């Protein structure tokens, strides 16, 4: 299947890219890795008049870590680079794990974190992990930028608060307190498939009390989201099996899965219970043993 035809531009700076998007409102789309955009174009679901290739912009694929500031990742860093990065494995293992189970190696070698986030699939793995890691985004536009929490970025399947002239520039993962642990679980038919249900948990222990917890669920709502009622049942408590059960049940209530080609809503709802509980217990164990 061939791509539809388009006008092509390859700006050398992010500012130029943003200006191009502003110049052609509703007609131009940024191209990062292309593993989502080019697919939708081949399927003729999106047919942009202008394609703005971001890959000529250098210096946007960095992965840096600072002991106070945490992790900063350039939006054009590939998913595979997240999986392989020693920095991420050392300081943010959960992210490496989640990135590592996205799709196939061929896709990961080309797909970018910025594109993965902007595509806004509720099933995306790295973004789900980033939500529970408390990540925030830096969004650039011509002559300025803004920051916001990733968990506030998604508004619906494939829909975000990104303006048509904005481009994701960077992802920031703040430092986690010591004795934080995490877990990422993905339920799919094949290793390379999109998740049917996914769960990510990050929690912090103070003595054996859970001083903070974030529970993220993927593929069971219009967006990846935090199951706050579930979190509320565990915050400031000592996590027991019974509490984990209760939280997982709350997570089921908070989910709004649909029937689709990958699974029935009923099946997904059932799976949310088990996968949430497992993620909570795994994150707990991880925190006890040294952490994220």
């Amino acid at each position, binding site marked *: 299947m061939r791509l539809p035809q388009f006008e092509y531009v390859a700006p050398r700076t992010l500012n130029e890219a943003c200006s191009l998007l502003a110049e052609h409102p509703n007609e131009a789309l940024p191209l990062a890795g292309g593993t989502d955009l080019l*697919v939708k174009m081949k*399927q003729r679901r999106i047919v942009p008049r202008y394609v703005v*290739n971001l890959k000529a912009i250098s210096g946007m694929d960095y992965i840096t870590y600072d002991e106070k500031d945490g992790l900063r990742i350039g939006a054009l860093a590939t998913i595979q680079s997240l999986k392989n990065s020693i920095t991420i494995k050392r300081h943010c293992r959960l992210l490496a794990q989640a990135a590592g189970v996205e799709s196939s190696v*061929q896709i990961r070698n080309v797909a970018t974190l910025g594109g993965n986030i902007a595509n806004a699939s509720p099933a995306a793995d790295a973004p789900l992990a980033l939500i529970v890691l408390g990540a925030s985004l830096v969004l650039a536009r011509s002559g300025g930028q803004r920051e916001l929490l990733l968990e506030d970025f998604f508004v619906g399947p494939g829909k975000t608060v990104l303006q048509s002239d904005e481009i994701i520039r960077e992802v920031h993962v703040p430092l986690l307190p010591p004795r934080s642990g995490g877990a990422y679980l993905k339920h799919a*038919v094949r290793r*390379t498939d999109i998740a049917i249900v996914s769960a990510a948990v990050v929690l912090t222990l103070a003595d054996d009390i859970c001083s903070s917890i974030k529970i993220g669920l993927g593929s069971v709502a219009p967006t990846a989201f935090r199951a706050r009622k579930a979190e509320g049942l565990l915050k400031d408590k000592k996590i027991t099996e019974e509490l984990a059960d209760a939280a997982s049940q709350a997570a089921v209530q908070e989910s709004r899965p649909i029937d*689709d080609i990958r699974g*029935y809503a009923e099946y997904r709802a059932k799976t949310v219970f088990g996968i949430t509980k497992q993620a909570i217990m795994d994150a707990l164990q991880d925190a006890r043993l040294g952490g994220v």
Partner: protein
Amino acid sequence: MKQEIRLKVNGQAYTFEVEPWQTLLEVLRENLKLIKTKEGCGVGECGSCAVIMNRKAVNSCLVLAVDADGKEILTAEGLAEDVEYHPFNEALIGQGSMRASSEPPGSKSQHEFFTFCHVCPGHCSVKAIVEDGKVVDIVPDRESGLPNELCPVKKGRFSIPEVLYHPDRLKYPQKRVGARGEGKWERISWDEALNTIAQKLLTLKETYGPESVAFGLGEPKGLEFAFAQRLASVFGTPNVVTPGWCCGIPSGMASTLTYGWNCVPDEEHPPRLMVLWATNNNHTSGGIRRETFERAIDSGAKLIVVDPRKIDVASFSDLWIRLRPGSDGALALGLLKVIVEEKLYDKEFVDGWCIGLDALEKELKTFSMKKVEEVTWVSEEKIREFARLYASIKPATIQWGNALDTSTTAFPGAKAVAILRAITGNLNIPGGEMFLTPAPYLRPGKFFLLSKFPRDRERAVGGEFKLAVRSAFIPPHAFVNSVLTGQPYRIRAGLFLLTNPILSYPDSKKTFEAFMKLDFTVVSELFMTPTAALADILLPAAWGMEHEELGYWPGWYEEIRAYPKLIDPPGEAWADTKWLNELAKRLGLGEYFWESDEEALDDMLKPSGFTYEDMKRKRVLHSKREYKKHDYRTPSGKVEIYSKTASDFGYSPLPYWKEVSILPRLTDEYPLLMTNAKEDVYMLTGYKHVASLRNMKPEPLAEMHPETAKKMGLKEGELIYIETEKGKIMQRLALDDTLDPRIVVTSFGWWFPEERSTLYGWAKSNINVLTRSEPPYDPGIGTVDLRGIPCKVYSAGG
């Protein structure tokens, strides 16, 4: 605007001018003819296009050529010597990345079983990986020396584990309660189901005669087709609809009536020239397997591709003939004219072994090359080039595809192609067109008990189609007309297996009406489909790997294969052979069947001296390949350019220009020709439930030339209506400037399992809503135009 790119491929530097929308895959295949990197799904799911770019594995179908600028690429050709096919895929196999199991490979004990993929007639040899009683993967069998290169889109590998365990699999016999199509069912036992069916059929037989019961069959997978034919024979009904009316039989019979056999390209010796006529041997394994095709190309064979679309094999062909859909017969006669009049044929062969050259010469004088150009939309110059190239290189083969059979001119067109093969001296020579001696298994015709219970033309609906009835089927429109009009009498009941007539019979609206009007309908299926939804008794079918099976299809390989049972079917699903066998007993016809359907497996193999158990180890009995000089099983013992036998079946004895040149006219109201191409991702109408396939192609696309779209005010990506006199359907518009501006290429076989309230959207995008069941018909088989139909296109506003 074109961009210049410089890249290294397999160590060599190249510079290209590319459009921004070209992908690296296109550059590799079309500019560099590195054909081991293939397009499967085109959307990065199947991995068939994977290459190494700057030491990273990437899917080249999703890399813009401009993004490969300055990079180093390694393809299969650069990764390994003498590879059968992409070694990169092997590495991915090892990673277990396509296993349908959440456990990592090696965490549970697994067993491997040799078998064949049962999804399409290519039947690639595979190893099924079974873990914990479940098939988790099928991988190419690289050990047995059998054709094993999976289709690039890997539809078997994706669909088999998903279909086997799909939650929507039908598991129990059901009977309709409530109105037909209402969707209210009651679970019943097999006993009740079979007794109900038997009772109904016997009553109908007694009251209206056995011919009031029809069978509707699809493409054979194992022996179920043969069981159903056998049952039809002994029950006494000649009314069996099979796909033969628009697939295989017109071309096959045209060949048989010309040189006494059907033929396939030689796979032992590569041809020096291949014509792919209406087939894409990258995706389809008909006649020439993928490995053979690639070996031939590697050894320098020339390639001519005949197709209205620039399919990928056309991209690296030596000659691409972009013809008008439906004009294949006219093109073939044009080629004959050049070859005969320029005396390019094998004179010795034709003088010694062909009868009818004079009559052909006379016929070829009745039209001009200008006329051929007009009808086929191919320039006279190109037709001459095609003819001269084809005739000048030996050995050469013509691999035909389905489009030759989907037209009212299918028979004369295919006969013209058969004559081309013969007069160029390519019959039964190494590298040419082979007549295969079937492996020694019971001939299907014998299994159907046709000699003991011959099909009665006088009693069949559609009995006027003599060649069809002789080939043990009737065309679907004869069935539909009988039910709707009561002419020549009314068929009252139907048993349907392997088939989805609401999608696959021409004129879906009439087909639907007929199904609503039937007194009694039995459908055996894997899933609920638009046809299954209209059943009175719905039976759950077991699938491949779920029962012991022999497969003799496709007929042109003349071989038979064993498909061992690897796992249990879900619920109470039964193999079709099992319930047909049981039904026969309850109809009082048990003497022609077996105590258990599995006994038939040994019987099928009797002529070989092997038992089915032996076959499970032997796996396949091959046909015999002999370069039998001058063995033409025609009445004259020679190649019959002029065939009197053909006229016995209502055909002209040789193809006449006036037959193949009368094609539907474009009008102001219907200014475009609708055609369609094989859906690479799906197997015909099936598997729309399979997530990994539906992910690759989520909805039907229709392709048109950008200028035509512009004239009609249509934008790429919008939903459009395609309309004929019969009705209208909706598909999404894609533009392709390599198409003739006068055509629209639609997607076949679309229905929507998720749209329950509209009976699965059977009328929404189904191109058979647009086709007709009225005459004109091919006189011997009843074929109707399914491609090249005048239509109009306009926005659906979405």
